[in-house]
């Protein structure tokens, strides 16, 4: 395979790897933000809380019905405008256009992931039968205690496969961060390729890096799911 520059391939692999921390940071922070919001809005949907339920539905169809790259462009364009208005109003002097793209990435990807998680949590919570919360109430637990000790642990097991998919999709979606100059895997490798037009090698590297991360994440989720669902094993 003489058309591949092996040295470049290997060197760039490490360049691409150096983008992993940013990709994972964006993934983790977005999940940390999206999990509580997603859970709260999932509950609003289940209990059909008037305004929040309709809001959640609209929000989900917006996120589902548009490509992520467009969501990125829209938020990347509107957030500075909003901030600008805010800063002017409160007379804050801050160079808006120098904000680290990392911050935009956190907002954009948690915005997107929240919508996904609402539905993940909603369907997971609905797999737990109503009898579980009734039994918890009947032994004197409050609704919050019942959720914390009985409902959420069971719903989490049901949610694991979808959570895994959502996380992997999120990791892959961070590759779109190059559009806002986020110093992640794809951007770093591409920049490297720009010098000598070694795009094929760079893409191969990107390919392998994502593949490795996603395999590792999937493995982690499987392992954790097994641990969480020990109670479902039927031994007799």
């Amino acid at each position, binding site marked *: 395979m003489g058309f591949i520059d092996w040295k470049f391939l290997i060197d760039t692999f490490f360049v691409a790897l150096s983008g992993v921390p940013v990709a994972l940071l964006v993934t983790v922070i977005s999940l940390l933000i999206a999990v509580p919001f997603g859970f709260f809005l999932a509950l609003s949907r289940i209990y059909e809380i008037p305004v929040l339920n309709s809001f959640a539905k609209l929000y989900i169809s917006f996120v589902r019905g548009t490509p992520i790259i467009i969501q990125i462009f829209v938020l990347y364009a509107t957030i500075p405008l909003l901030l600008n208005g805010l800063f002017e109003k409160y007379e804050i002097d801050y160079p808006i256009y120098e904000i680290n793209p990392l911050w935009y990435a956190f907002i954009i990807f948690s915005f997107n992931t929240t919508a996904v998680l609402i539905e993940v949590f909603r369907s997971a919570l609905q797999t737990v039968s109503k*009898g579980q919360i009734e*039994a918890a109430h009947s032994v004197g*637990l*409050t609704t919050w205690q019942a959720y914390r000790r009985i409902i959420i642990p069971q719903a989490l097991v049901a949610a694991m496969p979808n959570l895994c998919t959502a996380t992997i999709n999120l990791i892959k979606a961070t590759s779109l961060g190059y559009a806002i100059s986020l110093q992640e895997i794809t951007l770093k490798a591409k920049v490297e390729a720009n010098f000598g037009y070694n795009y094929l090698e760079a893409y191969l590297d990107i390919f392998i890096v994502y593949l490795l991360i996603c395999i590792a994440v999937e493995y982690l989720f499987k392992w954790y799911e097994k641990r969480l669902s020990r109670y479902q*094993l*039927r031994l*007799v």
Partner: protein
Amino acid sequence: MLEIKNVHKTFGKNEILKGVDLTIDKGDVVVILGPSGSGKTTLLRCINFLERADEGTASFDTIQVDLHNASKKDILAIRKKTAFVFQNYNLFNNKTALENVAEGLYIGRGLKKEEALKISKEALNRVGLAEKYDAYPSQLSGGQQQRVGIARAVALNPDIILFDEPTSALDPELVGEVLTVMKDIAREGTTMLVVTHEMSFARDVANRVIFMDGGNVVEEGTPHEIFVQPKEERTKRFLQRVLPDDYSYHI
């Protein structure tokens, strides 16, 4: 000890409970009989606030609550005095037998963990499950699960235990073990309100039988009065249907 008055409950357009009154004394074992859909489950659920009645009151010794407007505090207070055994057991799937029993003591009542576990073990021993502390519900037979359900209720040492058809979901060969446990705890003086189709339990264990139909209490009395000398036509017809032809009643 427990006095329920004028319980009304409507689902949609169907009036399920049409003003039910009920008095239970300490140590009573009261069985509720009645055809399907007569509102037996709904009545028990209203007493424990698993369902919110449209109207009615409950007085529990010194506590008096409105079944419709009860505050969260009232509800917790009533639930501390009652326990519920469900038709489908409703054991906590993510907890072992021992944890199932301890949960209400440890989290609900705020007992120390060791204390809660000690009481829970005793309760499981009482229902014959000393070997199954660490089994998850998915590893237990229906009869064993329901016995855990009973232990979970007994451990709370409530003033009254409400049973909603505790043996209906069981395979016939498993009914006996659950009824035996229920008889044992009845003999030990536990106050029980039991919805069941097990006529033998009503006959042998209850000291009072209530017949419900169409959301009303039609007739109540001792097992002898209900089974041998029912006064109401509806009671007679129901008993004819559910009792085997050769059912002979001796007391």
